[in-house]
């Protein structure tokens, strides 16, 4: 196992794969969070009745496997002759996937702000926007940041599935090396270690924030 044919260039190749994983994650989480905040606000403001179609649509993204979503997204973009490269398709699908989860987090965060606090803000003469900006946003962020970090890590791990569309991210890169060097265990261990190194400190930070920021302490 330790007499490996792995060269420096192969490690660089893996690192490039990791870079691709991080890039896909960053784009999807950024877009997904913005969409999630918008959808979350719509769901809170419009009430369960009027936002039912949105709720259903987002629920679909959470109840269908991501792999199927990616395949469908790719098929749809070729049917519509959009000519997107795999990177764009992956990011679009992952963004919607992220948005579906982020909506729930945003909704939970807004729901955790006591209505009395918001009414107090409004009766002090704040507008709806001011109430949202200065009262709800800080309190809701405090509640939802830990789960948002969890979501980001989840998307980072799920982004491994974009290999199905032919994007060379970390797991696909290691698979290519496995095919060439025939040392599956060693290379996969390196790949897993990279995922772990990216994910573990951030997960710990999330856990710390959850403890540090929980409102009832």
């Amino acid at each position, binding site marked *: 196992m330790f007499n490996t044919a792995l060269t420096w260039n192969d490690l660089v190749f893996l690192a490039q794969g990791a870079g691709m994983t991080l890039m896909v994650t960053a784009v999807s989480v950024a877009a997904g969070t913005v969409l999630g905040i918008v959808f979350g606000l719509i769901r809170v403001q419009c009430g369960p009745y009027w936002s039912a179609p949105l709720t259903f649509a987002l629920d679909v993204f959470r*109840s*269908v*496997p991501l792999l199927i979503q990616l*395949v469908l997204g790719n098929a749809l973009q070729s049917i519509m002759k959009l000519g997107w490269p795999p990177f764009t398709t992956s990011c679009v699908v992952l963004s919607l996937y992220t948005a579906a989860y982020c909506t729930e987090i945003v909704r939970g965060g807004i729901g955790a702000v006591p209505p009395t606090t918001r009414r107090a803000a409004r009766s002090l003469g704040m507008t709806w926007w001011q109430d949202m900006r200065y009262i709800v946003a800080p309190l809701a962020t405090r509640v939802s940041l830990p789960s948002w970090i969890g979501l980001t890590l989840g998307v980072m791990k799920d982004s491994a599935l974009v290999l199905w569309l032919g994007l060379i991210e970390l797991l696909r890169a290691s698979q290519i090396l496995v095919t060439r060097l025939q040392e*599956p*265990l060693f290379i996969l261990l390196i790949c897993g270690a990279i995922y772990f190194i990216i994910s*573990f400190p951030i997960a710990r930070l999330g856990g710390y924030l959850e403890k540090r920021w929980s409102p009832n302490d």
Partner: protein
Amino acid sequence: MFNYTFHWNQALRSLPQMLDGALVTLQIAILSMAIGLAIAIALTLFRLSGNRILGGFATTWVEIARNTPALFQIYMAHFGLGNFGIHLSPYTALLVGIAFNNAGYLAENFRGALKAIPDTQARAGRSLGMTSLQAFRYIVMPQMLRIAFLPATNQMVWAILMTSLGVTVGMNTDLAGVTQELNARSFRTFEFFALAAVIYYVIAKAVTLAARAFAWRMFRY
């Protein structure tokens, strides 16, 4: 915009095949969940035991399961174990990978649930003459399972969705695998996968509703 004719008939004609695949999917999900549950309870006991080696083992398992992609874990079972001369079929590899993942997440759920149970209860059990295993079995575990039931339901839905990853290691009997094979024969990608998506959605919703009904029946005060 659409210069494309959808051929839904073709997909609908292979619906029986896909439903057979859905059964395999459900079977893997349930098996992996049962195995995962058993291992998670064992890991929770290891963590509670105060033994540093067992506790360290449990923590390592949980952290690896939670901090690497499920697909990586399945690859590890399928390709990685080959180094030790263990060659698993796609079915077994998928089952092992998902069970490993489930065990990690469920153990973490149980840890959260345990925090909600006052340890005075276990101590009361001990002072009534129960052994520590009895106190865990009859006092702590029923409450732990009740609190962890909802997160476990989510994990079950996750397990169903994760079975679709089997297609990447050559699984061709579960829903995703069957769909991929039909797709390779006809190139009607969108139709077949849309139908698969509908089936996955129905299964996921059915499981959620069944779990809710079960919880209502079991955990009512």
